[in-house]
């Protein structure tokens, strides 16, 4: 192996190590701890017309300390039931979570009528932070 190739490999390894070090040790920062979802105007009317419109995913993942507040805004013309409460037109429901667990909610904004919210513990260990960052990056690429 030539000296140049060895040097390139060394640089690549150093960059990878630095990236892993950053991903594992740098604090995770989110602009807001709220994960927001909107129920658009006309949702009820579309459902009534037979359109199986999906507003919310049937599974939402939150992470304590980073993204641990669910915010649902009802822009529809009719009340919508989300899990523990009924939201009037124009009303928002902000639900903070402080415990990691799986929560099941009834939700009239969802075609199946059910919503699961998985609240994960805050990633503290380096490996957990790397895993969280990689997964977030991957999910952004899928959108």
């Amino acid at each position, binding site marked *: 192996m030539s000296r140049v190739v060895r040097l390139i490999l060394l640089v690549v390894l150093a960059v990878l190590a630095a990236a892993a070090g950053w991903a594992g040790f740098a604090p995770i920062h989110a602009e807001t701890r709220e994960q927001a979802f909107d129920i658009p105007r006309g949702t009820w009317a579309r459902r009534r017309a037979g359109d199986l419109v999906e507003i919310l995913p049937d599974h939402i993942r939150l992470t304590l300390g980073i993204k641990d507040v669910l915010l649902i805004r009802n822009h529809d013309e009719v009340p919508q039931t989300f*899990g523990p409460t009924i939201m009037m037109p124009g009303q928002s429901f902000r639900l903070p979570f402080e415990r990691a667990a799986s929560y099941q909610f009834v939700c009239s904004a969802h075609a199946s009528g059910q919503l699961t919210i998985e609240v994960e513990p805050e990633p503290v260990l380096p490996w957990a932070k790397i895993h969280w960052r990689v997964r977030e990056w991957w999910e952004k690429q899928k959108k």
Partner: protein
Amino acid sequence: MAAQAAEPPAQSQLKAGTLTPVMPAPELKLDGSDGKPLSLANYRGKVVLLAFGFSNCGEVCPVTLFTLASARKKLGDEAAGVQVVYVTVDPQRDDAAQMRKFLGSFDATFVGGVGTMAQIEAAEKSYGISVSRKVYADGSYTIGHSSSIYIIDRGGGLRAVMPYGHPVDDFVHDLKILLRG
């Protein structure tokens, strides 16, 4: 329904889920387990914790009522500013006397809401309560129901909703904010 202030200052400090803008809590037209007509307007000036359940409930209701009774105990003198209202979802079996006996085993100040099936269904609808009845082979039945606790401020605004399962200290935390706010 007229909206009150866009967002009261303490709203984001609450551990319960919060509604914005705050709107008046839907009124109840029921009979109270204390023998008087039950109306939320009777409790203006107090923070009302409103929940739905039934006296034959074996799992959720005892836990909820024990939690609310414990929160009142922890509040000490401030508990005088808190009223628990527990509306039955089982009007077939829960009359005023039954609810008084059931609720009294947790806290003598708790007031039950009873009425006809139509009255109860109207109350359930106005709060988005889901109720499902499971009938057994012997004809007996049990009822699955929404288990959140609605938190109504001293002005009658529906401020927040505490999902089932929150510890006593979360209630104490939020009640202190609402009682002092």
